[in-house]
Every structure is written in C-alpha cells, then in structure tokens.
C-alpha cells in the first residue's frame, strides 16, 4: 500500500535528483560535492518506492507510522549535509586567510624589490 506521503517524497526525491544532475551537467556543482546530495536523493526515492523496506526499517526503529520515518531520514541527511558544509567552510576560510597573508607578504616584497631597483 502506497499512500500520499510516499508520493510526495517520491516526487521530491526525483526532483532533487533531477536538479542535482542538472547542476553537475552545467558545472555549477562539482562532482565531489554532488555525491552526498545524490546519495540523499537516492535514499529518499528508494524509501518512497520500496514500501516493504520502509516498513521494516521503521519497525526496527520502533516507529508506528512508517512514512514519518521518511521525515527522520530527511532530517538526518540535512544535518549531515549542514555539518559537511561547516567542515568545508572551515577549510576554505583557513585557506583564504593563509592566501591573504601570503598575498600581503608578497606585495610587500614586490614593493621592496621595486624600491631597490630605483636606487
């Protein structure tokens, strides 16, 4: 038995998958960072289509209304995604500061060398 909830998550999952593939194709999203998104979309689609799997897993988690397990999965995936981004941002901001320092020091060195040339 498939109810409305499953349809909604199926459509949402499929739309997400389409958008991600489109973004990767047009190079607005790199393959590297699309993997976690693709995985999320596929998990949502799988759970929407394969009702038996949803029921079994929901039962293991002690959830009486299986479709609500979809929410739990979506929430978990969103949190993982957010954490992933925080890690990436940390790395990027560390690198941008290091790069800014390097640029500042190099600019200073260029000015020093140009000053020596004039003499």
């Amino acid at each position, binding site marked *: 038995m498939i109810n409305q909830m499953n349809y909604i998550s199926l459509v949402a999952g499929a739309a997400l998958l389409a958008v991600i593939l489109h973004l990767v194709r047009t190079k607005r999203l790199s393959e590297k960072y699309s993997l976690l998104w693709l995985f999320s979309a596929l998990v949502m689609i799988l759970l929407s289509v394969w009702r038996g799997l949803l029921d079994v897993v929901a039962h293991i988690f002690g959830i009486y209304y299986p479709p609500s397990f979809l929410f739990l999965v979506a929430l978990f995936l969103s949190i993982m995604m957010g954490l992933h981004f925080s890690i990436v941002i940390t790395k990027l901001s560390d690198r941008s*500061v290091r790069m*800014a*320092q390097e*640029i*500042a*020091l190099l*600019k*200073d060195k260029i000015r020093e060398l140009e000053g020596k040339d004039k003499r």
Partner: protein
Amino acid sequence: MKDVVVIIPAYNEEESLSRLLPEIRAAVPEYDIIVINDGSSDRTEEVAGNAGVRSISLPFNCGIGAAVQTGFRYAVEKGYSVAVQVDGDGQHDPGFIRPLVAALREGKLDVAIGSRFLEKKGFQATPLRRFGIWIFQTVNSRILGQTVTDNTSGFRAYSNRAFSFLADDYPCDYPEPEAVVTLGLKGFVIREIPVGMRERLGGESSIVNLRPVYYMTKVLLATFMNLVRALLARRRPA
C-alpha cells in the same frame, strides 16, 4: 639575525596610529616597526606611510589574530630575534616596549606578557571586562600551574622560537588567551611584566554587543580543546 621588530595590527586605526607611531619611534628608535593593515577602509595605510613606517596590507579584513600572524611570518622570513606586539588602538604605552624586551632577554623567556594587573597601574578596564579577564586568569592559571593575570593583553614580546611556532598556528580572532595556553602547554617559558595601559587613543573596540559572549565561549572552547590535545599527545608516546 636582525634585532627587534614591533608588530602593530591595525584595523581602521588612522586616528590613533597618527599619534602612536611617532611615540613608538621615539621610545625605541633602533627597533623596526611594521604596521599590519587588516583590510582597513580608512587611511590606516597612508598614515603609516606618512609616519615613515612600513606597512603590510591584507587584501580584506581577516581578524586581529590573522593580522598578527602575518607579522610573525614576516618576522620569521626576515629573521628577527624578538617580535613585540603592540595594539594599534594606542592602549599599550610604548614606554614599556623596552622593559618587555629586556625582561624577555634577561629572563631567557619565550613570551613576556605586559600585564596591567601586576602593579594595578594605569587604565584597569571596565568591571565587565575585568570579570571576563578573571575567568581567563582562573582557567589558564589552573591549566598551566602558573599565575597569568592578564591573558587578554596583546602587549607581548616573543622570542624567535615562540613566534616561529605561532607563525604556523595562531587563531584568527581573539587569539590572546588561547595562545597563552597553547604556548604554555608546549613548554614555552612565559612570564608577565607589569605595564601601564591607557584608554584607546581613537577608533572603536571590536568587542561590543553580543561579541563578549561569543568571545568567552569561543576562547574557553578553544582552551579546552588545547588541553585535550595536549593530554592526548602526552599519553600517546607512553
């Protein structure tokens, strides 16, 4: 090896720098001075140039820690034996630069921290700030087994060994209390020297609104993480 470089981090400090730089010049004429302009939108760089002081400009605002670290990296590259940090807001009385460096050398220290609380002379900070400072004093002194009264003071002299270490590892924002713990746990010799501080000569403090809450939380978390890392590192070789 070159002698001493005075590193001055400055973010929009045109007002105070125009008075501070000549003061430093007069106090320690034989030391090199370098202003690290942290992406200022005012005439900070120009003011430094007019005072005949070399300035290094970061392309955008990176935070005082990143600015000071730029100075450390400059000092490493040029091979200075001592680096002194003096904040650009004019709170640090340049008259104490020489005593700080002397204490560093005579005591064979790695870090000489200028403390406004050892002799309780000069500007003592507002009560709320003193409360924050008291928390850092309690936590850091406990961790290091050594009383450090003025952990937020950015008025410091570093040995080549110490600033070379910090050139690779220094927090971007609110770095001072954390650096005390990092250095102390690494075995660098730290001592405080009494200095007088003044109210800022101009410009505005960066620690306003909700920032104190962020400041305290961030620094205490970083301090705790430093402690955990040190404990784990100590256990691993055994």
